[in-house]
């Protein structure tokens, strides 16, 4: 045992006690935040103006109101016949110790019909890349196994998920109402990461734009939501703090903490519009119709964040998304069934990763390439005394 439990365990009580004290202190801040929320709801345009003015030079994310009152609490409407589609991805990062550095992206998808007559489907598709060597981005800051960051594997995976979801939604809309659920944020945030090669970012921005445009073109049949479980975002809390300028009480650390006491099981908040420097940076790559909106949903003790494009924030589409999420989470112990199954289709097991590594090495050898010996890697394999 390398972790010295006799040193660690005595520190735990004080650690938990400090956190508990913080939570108690935050109660007053929650009261203040709720009070600010009420004031915002009395005059949303004036509140928005005050928030924008206060956050003008801030890099922190914040929110402004949508058509709905900021303090709205909505119960889930009835769940109707529709088809839920979802996509999720997994990847094998390039291994700098391999004879050939490459990556694998495996994108899982599901089509789950509920009373629509569409055929259910589960599956995945994989790609190996890059197709051509590209320039690397910034230095990898000493990371040991990161491989060429310039390839933007995570970004490619995010874009592949969005494209897969768009393809399925496009195929099915017109045949039944469709709800597309994505895992994580709506936009692939690495689109503005300087660690990803500029050519890669440009290509993936174009592909993201096309996928979003295809989704928007699906019309009234389609609802879209990007699901972030246990979100730590603080856009609304930051806006409320801006409204309550000068309040010295300890403010809640996340929107989830605020809305956990605002919402009951299955209820959602109002739809808000995201506003921050980073959001603007990435949003500026796309048409205004794709502006990021979001709401929070409570399922059990979990307050999750749902991000959706502005065009998908109409009352009907949001109601369909809300009803679907509540139904999906009830089917799967508090997490959307479609996302869970898409993940299961995407996940690359340890065994598959090892097999891929061996097959890559074998192919490299077949073509006369030898894996360079690396002393650090060898020392990890050879652990004998």
């Amino acid at each position, binding site marked *: 045992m390398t972790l010295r439990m006799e040193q660690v365990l005595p520190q735990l009580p004080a650690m938990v006690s400090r956190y508990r004290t913080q939570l108690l202190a935050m109660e007053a801040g929650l009261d203040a935040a709720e009070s600010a929320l009420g004031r915002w709801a009395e005059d949303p345009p004036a509140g928005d103006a005050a928030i924008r003015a206060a956050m003008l030079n801030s890099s922190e994310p914040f929110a402004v109101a949508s058509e709905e009152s900021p303090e709205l609490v909505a119960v889930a409407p009835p769940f109707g016949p529709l088809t839920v589609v979802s996509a999720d991805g997994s990847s094998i990062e390039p291994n700098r110790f391999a004879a050939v550095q490459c990556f694998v992206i495996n994108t899982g998808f*599901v089509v*789950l*019909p*509920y*009373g629509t007559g569409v055929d*259910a*489907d*589960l599956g995945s598709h994989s790609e190996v890349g890059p197709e051509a060597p590209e320039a690397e981005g910034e230095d990898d800051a000493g990371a040991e196994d990161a491989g060429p960051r310039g390839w933007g594997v995570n970004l490619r995976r995010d874009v592949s998920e969005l494209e897969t979801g768009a393809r399925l939604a496009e195929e099915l809309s017109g045949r039944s109402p469709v709800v597309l659920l994505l895992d994580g944020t709506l936009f692939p945030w690495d689109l503005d990461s300087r660690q990803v090669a500029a050519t890669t970012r440009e290509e993936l921005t174009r592909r993201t734009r096309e996928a979003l445009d295809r989704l928007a073109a699906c019309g009234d049949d389609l609802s879209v939501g990007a699901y972030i479980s246990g979100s730590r975002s603080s856009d609304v809390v930051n806006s409320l703090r801006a409204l309550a300028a000068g309040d010295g009480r300890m403010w809640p650390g996340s929107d989830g903490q605020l809305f956990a006491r605002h919402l009951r099981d299955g209820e959602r908040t109002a739809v808000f519009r995201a506003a921050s420097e980073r959001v603007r940076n990435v949003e500026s790559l796309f048409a205004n119709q794709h502006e990021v909106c979001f709401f929070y949903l409570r399922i059990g003790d979990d307050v999750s964040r749902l991000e959706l494009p502005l065009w998908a924030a109409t009352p009907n589409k949001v109601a369909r998304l809300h009803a679907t999420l509540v139904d999906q989470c009830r*089917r799967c112990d508090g997490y959307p*069934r479609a996302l869970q*199954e898409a993940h*299961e289709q995407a996940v690359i097991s340890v065994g598959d990763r090892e097999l891929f590594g061996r097959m890559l090495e074998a192919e490299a050898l077949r073509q006369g390439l030898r894996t360079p010996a690396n002393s650090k890697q060898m020392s990890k394999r050879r652990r004998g005394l």
Partner: protein
Amino acid sequence: MTPTPRVVEAGLRGFACAYERYLEDPFRLGQFVAVREGPCVVLGVVTDSASGPEDPSRPLQPRGAADQSAADVMTANPEIRLLLRTRVSVVSCGHIEGEAARPTLPPMPPPLLARVEPASAAETVRMASDATFLALLVVAPGCDDAAIAASVRTAAEAFGTGAHEFRVRAGKELARLLRAEPARLTSIMRGIGA
């Protein structure tokens, strides 16, 4: 179209085949099946069938309201059927090479991923006519009395009007093979309905 299972484990004495999905009506116990890929046609008798999750780390949870049938629950949870598999165990009972039908082990196992299809009535009659195929079944570890009895009942159907005569021949063959195991013989004969 009826789904076709494929060989997923293969040996000389038997093989296992799996359907791509869960199937409520797979090959039946005692049914004669054929693998027609490879150097010879391998014939076998179904001795077991089981359905469950493809991934053993994800056990099937008992779902559904009190008034829901299995079909209702499947419809309400459309992903489940796609995550289940039906698997069938088969014991080899002979093979056909050219014109010769031999009630003996095949020279090699059927190819993995080969299609497994119902044996035709003609194939069943050729293989079962003298009932000597039963010798392979009675010594097969995975082939219990119920499977042997079911194979005789199934084969008898292929004989049409000659079913009774076939059952008599099968009974005599079983009596010869199991003369040292009267209790087992009785169990199988009861299963045949003789």
